[in-house]
């Protein structure tokens, strides 16, 4: 069964090709059903492979399927190979599973759009690229998928490209990712240069065995982290994700919540041995960046009024948690949060899409309210997602967040404080969102006079095809915590499953204060969540305290403006300088050689006068010189 691994990316690729050729003819909704069929088929194959791996002993859960030899050039041998091991199958499971659900949702959501089939073409292509990313056996195949998802992200963000803001957002995402990709490329060059291989098994074994010097390991790890910052929207390079909400909601759910943005965390987990072999400040840098990003994004989410922007900043914040976990050596916890986050964030985004659809494409939360009566199923599932992300037991989000906070506490108290404050803010702003959308007073008719004379507008529930994924994801958000419950090590399923991949790099907190007192910390996390919820209820529902939404938070601490100022000012000057060097020095050198040759030829061609007598004279002169030389040699 494991040998059928190649089918997993093959199905979406097939879907892409069929959509490319026949998409427009299939039309709405047949192309959507065909496109949904592909990731579903992949999911079934992945489940089969999962079962196959489970039946094997833990040490043998590592199978490589070599498709073909991709780059056999000199000493560089890169195979197009895919790998089935616990980490990649975990990723593949939720990529294909949630991907299939979102495809199903999009059949209903995109109904009526003129570019319907093209949307599904891009979605299938994205699933293919994402699968190549997670299943890759070496850095280059992963990079292929990495770039592929970046390109698909660009295409999908700018899907409604006639809208200027969408086109700009697409470009912004692509360029920001490119900066990160630069880091990945340099890391690959370093890995190949020092180790001669790009495959994960080669690199990780070298890191384990000590063949990788700490300097090199640090460089590779931090460069790959730069790429992860770009792809997973961490602080230096996060600014594309909020703007990416210009894309249709299924795109936001799939790419910017569940799958693409987790690629950075996945990559760092893949090279965990390299991170373990580097200097101690490297993981600390990662953890600090993750923590600061989490706090930053949480503060900004408090003041956002667009329903999707809140969720976007929430994603950035949760990704920050995942990186804090990676930096603290808690790889299993990071993957745990990744999986549960995929469930509830996709749920929240799809739910918001349902709200937007029911509100007639209205996205401003200030114009919603009291929707829970008119959109009951959407409301119910959204509330499940809210409870999960806020960290209320027994929903999935609580267990994963608690696991991370445990390891972070063992690593650094300061980071733990940041994590705790962020948890408080997360509960606060998500509660705020739920209240503004579903409870409180109804504002949807406040400005009905502005929209023209269509009388009283009444929001409606979404069609069933959009509700089914919501219900499924809600169910997963409720039971997802069972993957890794902290009560006894017998329940640590995820630990045991991922052990072959991360065991040696996982931090060991047995015997620390955190591990001894984990139930105390658990209780603290619950209390914080309830405090946050209570505060939001007091501000927005009961209206006892005034809301604090300062402008600086709404403008995301003016980060975007600062970046624009730097890039347009000194950045543009630097770019122009580099371009000048290229045009005048590099091109100038090349053209200069040509000009030199031409001018010297122009001088020497004057010797070709065309006159036979001149040629004869020169021959005579040469003959004289030659004979003189020979005569001198024999005489003297």
């Amino acid at each position, binding site marked *: 069964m494991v040998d059928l691994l190649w089918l997993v990316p093959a199905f979406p690729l097939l879907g892409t090709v069929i959509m490319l050729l026949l998409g427009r003819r299939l039309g709405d909704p047949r192309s959507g059903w065909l496109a949904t069929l592909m990731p579903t088929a992949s999911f079934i194959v992945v489940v089969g492979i999962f079962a196959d791996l489970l039946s094997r002993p833990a040490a043998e859960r590592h199978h490589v399927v070599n498709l073909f030899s991709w780059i056999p050039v000199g000493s560089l041998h890169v195979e197009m190979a895919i790998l089935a091991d616990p980490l990649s199958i975990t990723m593949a499971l939720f990529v294909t599973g949630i991907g299939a659900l979102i495809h199903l949702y999009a059949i209903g959501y995109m109904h009526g759009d003129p570019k319907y089939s093209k949307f599904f073409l891009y979605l299938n292509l994205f699933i293919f690229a994402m699968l190549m990313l997670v299943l890759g056996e070496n850095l280059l195949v992963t990079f292929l998928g990495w770039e592929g998802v970046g390109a698909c992200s660009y295409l999908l963000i700018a899907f409604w490209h006639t809208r200027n803001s969408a086109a700009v957002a697409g470009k912004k995402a692509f360029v920001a990712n490119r900066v990160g990709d630069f880091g990945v490329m340099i890391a690959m060059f370093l890995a190949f240069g020092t180790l001669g291989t790009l495959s994960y098994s080669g690199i990780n074994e070298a890191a384990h065995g000590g063949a990788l010097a700490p300097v090199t390991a640090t460089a590779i790890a931090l460069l790959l982290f730069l790429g992860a910052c770009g792809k997973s929207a961490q602080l230096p390079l996060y600014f594309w994700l909020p703007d990416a909400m210009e894309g249709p909601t299924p795109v936001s759910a799939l790419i910017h919540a569940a799958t693409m943005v987790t690629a950075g965390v996945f990559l760092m987990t893949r090279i965990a041995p390299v991170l373990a072999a580097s200097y101690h400040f490297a993981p600390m840098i990662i953890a600090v960046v993750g923590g600061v990003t989490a706090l930053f994004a949480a503060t900004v989410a408090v003041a956002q009024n667009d329903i999707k922007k809140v969720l976007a900043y929430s994603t950035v914040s949760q990704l920050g948690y995942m990186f804090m976990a990676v930096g603290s050596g808690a790889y299993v916890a990071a993957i745990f949060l990744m999986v549960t986050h995929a469930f509830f964030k996709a749920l929240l985004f799809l739910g918001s899409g349902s709200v937007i659809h029911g509100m007639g494409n209205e996205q401003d939360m200030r114009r919603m309210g009291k929707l829970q009566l008119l959109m009951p199923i959407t409301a119910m599932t959204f509330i499940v997602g809210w409870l999960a992300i806020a960290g209320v037991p027994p929903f999935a989000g609580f267990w994963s967040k608690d696991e991370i906070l445990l390891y972070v506490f063992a690593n650094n108290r300061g980071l733990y404080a940041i994590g705790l404050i962020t948890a408080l803010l997360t509960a606060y702003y998500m509660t705020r969102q739920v209240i503004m959308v579903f409870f409180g007073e109804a504002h949807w008719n406040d400005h009905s006079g502005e929209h023209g004379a269509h009388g009283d507008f009444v929001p409606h529930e979404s069609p069933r095809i959009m509700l089914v994924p919501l219900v499924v994801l809600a169910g997963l958000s409720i039971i997802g915590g069972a993957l890794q419950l902290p009560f006894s090590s017998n329940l640590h399923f995820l630990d045991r499953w991922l052990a072959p991949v991360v065991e040696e790099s996982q931090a060991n907190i047995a015997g620390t204060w955190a591990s001894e007192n984990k139930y105390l910390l658990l209780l603290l996390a619950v209390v914080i969540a309830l405090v946050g919820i209570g505060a939001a209820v007091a501000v927005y529902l009961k209206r006892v305290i005034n809301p604090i939404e300062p402008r600086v938070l709404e403008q995301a601490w003016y980060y975007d403006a600062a970046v624009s100022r730097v890039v347009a000012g000194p950045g543009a000057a630097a770019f122009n300088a580099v371009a000048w060097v290229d045009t005048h020095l590099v091109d100038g050198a090349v053209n200069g050689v040509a000009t030199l040759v031409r001018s010297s030829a122009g001088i020497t061609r004057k010797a070709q006068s065309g*006159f036979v007598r*001149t040629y004869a*004279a020169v021959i005579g*002169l040469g*003959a*004289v010189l030659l*004979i*003189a030389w020979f005569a001198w040699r024999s005489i003297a």
Partner: protein
Amino acid sequence: MELFVFVCAAVMVIVGAVGVVVRGNPVHAALSLVLTLFGIAVLFVAQHAEFLAAVQVIVYAGAIVVLFLFVVMLLGVDRAEDLRTDSLTGQRPLAVVVGLGLLGVLVAAIVSGTDAVITRGAGINGATIDTADANIVQLARSVFADYVVAFEVTSVLLVVAVVGTVLLSRRRATDVRPVSGRPS
């Protein structure tokens, strides 16, 4: 006696050679060439190469120079050339340099090298000259026995030359008549 012959022949050779170079009229130059060739023939006889002297007179002076004169008359290039100036700048000085240089080098080589050539070259080829046979017999023996391959090849060369000449100087139908107005 040999000195007298040498001096006379040498004078003929030099005067004729200078005449070829200096005379503007091509016909005069051709006649000077004949003088030189006769001088060379005399020197051949003084060196006991009688056959070659005869051949020199018959072939060179009798055929080749006559051919030259035929072509001169055919093309009508018998107008005297203006030798006071040279259209190419620097050609005359360059010619002087080349000439003097060549002369110097050759004289140096001859003066210093002749003895070496003679002592080292003695006894290379067995066909010596001073035997009882006449010159033409010795020459014939050398050409037809020792160098017969070269002989055959030169006969091929002559055939090629004749064929080539006929082809090269064919007058094609599209040839323009000479501009000089002569009846063709």
